[in-house]
């Protein structure tokens, strides 16, 4: 087990900056997920930590050691790949042993013992004598994970390990990975493009975009208090509604003005001085039909353009002025395309982003934990 310190990590490929000055501290035993769209630099970051890509600039420390120049095998890491990377001509057990035998300080008995233990943890003793082509996708990934854990690495790197599995298996493996993490307790870095995986697995989630970290926080904080518009729209499905507004302050407070509404923002004193364009963010589940909102609350009208029954809810695409917003209504609501409906919002769940995309307001203030204060002080 080791903590990881990333300081100003940068990766330059010819004229493309894949990873741009990332700094991050990962605690010992933490499960940290890197999430972001394709090409955001999440895999490159992981590969730099693994030592498979050289580091253009910045410093990487695992534990107390600077590892920038160390070969992968000297970093005490193990990695699981998206395509499993199993040797097709070796059985499951041989695959797990092959790397161990290269690290020469284990005796054959020790290796056998560890393979047996790993197989038991992963519930795959019967797969050990089979070759990869006789295994299903999920079984292959289990063997690949087994190969990683027999080495008892300090750091465990997983690069989209579930992306090649079907949806049902993915959910199952997700739960198993969490359980495995609790059992082996190694510092784990996990790369995925799937925000559901990120939310369910991570102690903390780092959202990357264009080679930079947008926000690192526990999943619920990320969801409730997105630091940027990008995070707000990337995390959550369906995505958060973000519409352009003008902030307008007077003696009574600040309101968000849009051609279709003029919404008073509670406790928005800080925004009084802000002039010019901004955007208002509100999640689909925080917009509801007016009849479900308390009597005196503020409401506005919208025209329904499309309805999508999701089963547990009905997703409405509504037009307000020129902008479209998504609204989650109760399943089996009698609403059809073309209807004009009255909507209200949960006033405690509003977000405002400035023109550069930074969050400048959350209607319920983020409670600052001791840890938060500490991390803020560092920056």
């Amino acid at each position, binding site marked *: 087990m080791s903590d990881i310190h990333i300081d100003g990590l940068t990766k330059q490929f010819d004229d493309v900056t894949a990873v741009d000055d990332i700094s991050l501290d990962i605690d010992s035993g933490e499960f940290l997920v890197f999430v972001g769209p394709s090409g955001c630099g999440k895999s490159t970051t992981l590969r730099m930590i*693994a030592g498979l890509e050289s580091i253009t600039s910045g410093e990487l420390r695992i534990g107390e050691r600077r590892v920038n120049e160390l*070969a*992968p095998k000297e970093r005490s890491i*193990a990695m699981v*790949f998206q395509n499993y*990377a199993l040797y097709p001509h070796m059985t499951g057990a041989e695959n797990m042993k*092959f790397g*161990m035998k290269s690290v020469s300080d284990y005796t054959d008995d020790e290796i056998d013992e560890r393979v047996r233990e790993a197989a038991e943890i992963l519930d795959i003793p019967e797969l050990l004598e089979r070759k990869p082509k006789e295994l299903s996708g999920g079984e292959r990934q289990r063997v690949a994970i087994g190969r990683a854990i027999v080495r008892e690495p300090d750091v465990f790197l997983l690069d989209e390990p579930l992306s090649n599995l079907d949806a049902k298996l993915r959910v199952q493996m997700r739960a198993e990975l969490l359980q495995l993490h609790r059992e082996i307790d190694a510092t784990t870095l996990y790369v995925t493009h799937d925000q559901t995986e990120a939310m369910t697995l991570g102690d903390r989630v780092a959202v990357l975009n264009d080679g930079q970290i947008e926000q690192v926080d526990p999943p619920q904080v990320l969801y409730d208090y997105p630091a940027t518009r990008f995070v707000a729209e990337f995390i959550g499905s369906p995505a958060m509604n973000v519409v352009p507004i003008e902030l307008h302050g007077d003696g009574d407070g600040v309101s968000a003005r849009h051609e279709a509404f003029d919404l008073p923002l509670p406790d928005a004193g800080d925004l009084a001085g802000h002039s010019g364009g901004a955007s208002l963010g509100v999640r689909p589940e925080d917009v509801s039909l007016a009849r479900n909102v308390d009597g005196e609350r503020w409401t506005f009208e919208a025209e329904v353009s499309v309805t999508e029954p999701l089963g547990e809810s009905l997703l409405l695409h509504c037009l307000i002025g020129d902008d479209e917003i998504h609204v989650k209504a109760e399943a089996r609501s009698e609403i059809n395309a073309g209807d004009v409906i009255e909507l209200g919002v949960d006033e405690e769940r509003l977000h405002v982003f400035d023109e550069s995309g930074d969050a400048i307001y959350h209607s319920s203030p983020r409670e600052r934990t001791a840890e938060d204060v500490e991390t803020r002080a560092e920056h």
Partner: protein
Amino acid sequence: MPEFTKPYESRWQAFLLLLPTFAVLIAFLYYPGVETFRLSLQQTILLGTRKTFVGLDNYVSLFTSSAYHWSFAISVAFAAVVVIGTLAASLFVAYLLFQVDVGSSTYLIAAIWPYALPTAVAASVLLFLLHPSLGIITFVLESLTGTSLEWFTNGPQAFAIVALVAIWKQLGYNIIFMVAALNNIPETLTESAKLDGVGHLKMLYRVYVPLMSPTLVFLVVMNTIYAFFQTFPLVDLMTSGGPNEATNLLIFKLYRDAFEFSNLGLASAESVVLFAIVAILMYVQLRLSESYTTYA
């Protein structure tokens, strides 16, 4: 789903489309093959103008001729040296090419260039480069090792020189296939091994060679055919089978029996035997390799 359309409209049209291929095969392969077999059962005089049927006499005289036994033995030895030597040298070069990051295509072109040279041209050029008294390579080798190369008169040396040239000539062909096979191996396997700290040599024989095995089997077969049939110009131009029969390979011997000693019947019998030897070898190679080959 795209509709499956036949590229032809009737059986006749299909037959017509195949006809050119069959015509060439029949005219230049099957008919000469049958003729060769027929000729091998005959005694010919005066370049085949007079023929008499002699049954298996030609075969009997081959199997009882010590010159033929010798030629058979050195041909098999030659093939073994060329096949193993080519594979080993090509694997070494291909692995280096696979691992190099900078300028790999330049190295690749340099490595496969000899293959683009016609065998006869290569043989003539190397004849001078390796000439016992004039050759520049000979000069360097002799000054480095302190031995003297006299392969115009020394049998074993001549055998070694021709084998070396045959290997050199065949490198490019093998390297192309091996580099392609290596590049087909998923990169994550290499990366995974890097994380484990697996050494280059261990990686080569424990991972790459097993995964390349289908290509290697193919190359063993192709190199065997090459060693038995396509080395004729090398022997013809460099040693003419000598000195003292040391490089008188089956393919060269049958040419001499046919066109120098005008014994077409006997040469045809040699052709048939050579064909049978290579066919049997290929069958054995393919059967043996089946159990070792990994088709991922």
